[in-house]
């Protein structure tokens, strides 16, 4: 296995192609909750994938931005998936999905208050202590303007990194979508991120929703990555250096080879971002 460069979200429908792919630096991300089952074909596929390629585990169910503490049973299931796949990264979202025993299949917003900061830092501490490893926190895609924020999103993320030692998963498409929907400048946002804490990058496509006399960009993971997101990506990795980068596609899934083209484009941009010196160092 090589050092993870650019990777793809794993789709069971692409299993044979994914397993056989020999592109240098290829890796796969899995959604942790899909593999929190006891056994069967799904787990056998996961084992085979992890045997051949590096795996990053991406959770959607921890609900870190819930007022109550994370469900420890769920954290332990996440730990088992991460151990079983020997994951090189484990990530979750700056969002909530659970309220009083009900789980919602979406990443929901919250007011970035000092109270929320304390609660989320506590929740990240609990999870990192149970996992015995660093968690990467992903910036969300936002649709609703809240007038009760006390912190900017980047200050909030910087503070979480400082208080908990967590890393960041920077989703460029989410930055693009959120700054369009809520306001702000995507380049300023990137400038304000703690570059050293970035452990992974996500790239994805979105769609425009023009009902209601206002254009909202929606993070569907169902389209090709747009030019503006590629430009933001180059801007970020020029600043942070290359980081394992994922092409996220969860809807309108094209053939594996088509996804591989987007993935190879990311790999080229990563190589270009490195100084000549660094490239020589890696080439040995």
């Amino acid at each position, binding site marked *: 296995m090589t050092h993870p460069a650019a990777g793809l979200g794993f789709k069971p429908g692409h299993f044979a192609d994914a397993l056989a792919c020999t592109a240098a630096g290829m890796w796969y991300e899995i959604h942790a*909750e*899909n593999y*929190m*089952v*006891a*056994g*069967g*074909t*799904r*787990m*056998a596929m996961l084992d085979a994938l992890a045997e051949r390629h590096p795996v990053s585990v991406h959770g*959607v*169910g921890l*609900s870190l*931005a*819930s*007022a*109550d503490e994370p469900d420890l049973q*769920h954290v332990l*299931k996440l730990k088992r998936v991460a151990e079983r796949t020997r994951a090189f990264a484990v990530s979750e979202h700056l969002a*909530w*999905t*659970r*309220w*009083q*025993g*009900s*789980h*919602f*299949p*979406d990443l*929901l*917003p*919250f*007011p970035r*208050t000092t*109270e*929320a900061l304390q*609660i989320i830092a506590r929740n990240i501490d609990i999870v990192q202590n149970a996992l015995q490893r660093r968690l990467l926190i992903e910036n969300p895609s936002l*649709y*609703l*303007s809240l007038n*009760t924020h006390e912190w900017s999103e980047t200050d909030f993320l910087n503070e979480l990194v400082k208080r908990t030692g967590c890393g960041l998963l920077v989703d460029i498409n989410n930055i693009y979508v959120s700054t369009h*929907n809520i306001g702000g400048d995507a380049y300023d946002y990137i400038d304000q991120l703690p570059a050293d804490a970035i452990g992974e990058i996500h790239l994805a496509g979105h769609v425009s*929703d023009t*009902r*209601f*006399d*206002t254009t*909202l960009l*929606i993070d569907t993971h169902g389209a090709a990555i747009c030019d503006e997101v590629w430009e933001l990506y180059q801007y970020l990795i020029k600043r942070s250096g290359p980081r394992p980068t994922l092409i996220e596609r969860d809807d309108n899934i094209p053939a594996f080879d088509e996804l591989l083209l987007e993935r190879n484009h990311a790999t080229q941009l990563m190589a270009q971002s490195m100084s000549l010196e660094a490239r020589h160092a890696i080439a040995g």
Partner: protein
Amino acid sequence: MPSLAEFQSAFADQLLSAHLATLSNRDMAAMTVYRNTVTKGFIDALAANYPTVLKLVGEEWFEAAALRFVRSAPATTPVLAEYGKGFAAFLEHFPPAKEIPYLCDVARIDWRWIESYTAPDAPALHAATLQALDGEQLLNTRLLLHPATRLCAVHHSALAIWSHNHASNVSPELIVSDTDEFGLITRRHDIEVLPLSSIEHEFVAHIEQGATLGEAAMTALADDAQFPLAGTLAKLITAGCFADL
């Protein structure tokens, strides 16, 4: 300023309610995104777990039923393979489903299939293991079902209807009758559905409840003096019905 808990409570109320509070145009657009994503997520999860029901009733009917179900029973786990256990019972009391008498039983088979699909891995019992026992040991043996084995007892030919419609490359076909059917879902490499007679079903059910092979065989022989014990055991073992001793 509302606390985080107060914010979550008010927001969660808006996610699945049939009527949305009055909001500005922009907030309405935003809340609609969250509401649509949540609803679509639940309906897609239910469709993934009940593919044969979806195929029989079509997308529009399924979505309408699923939306009612989701509002009455949002997920209690973020693991969506576990979502929707109560859907068959819900369909039983869902008035539009009254015209489709086999639908609840088809839903029950879909659910057992998912349970089998995600059940723990374990070695299956081989015939040689039983052959090594003497007659008395054999009759006193308490077999355990393999963790991926599920029994089905359904009405209205639901098993035949399910089998015709489950494979995605087969077009819907209906068999309308009021026949009771029995079957066994097992997982060796792929999941297989083995039709059983009512006596064979009773035989496996007794073993599942903890009867020894001798006790289960006595009950079967009392119902049918010709019950082919050896042949039935061989068939069940080949299908991967039991866990290794």
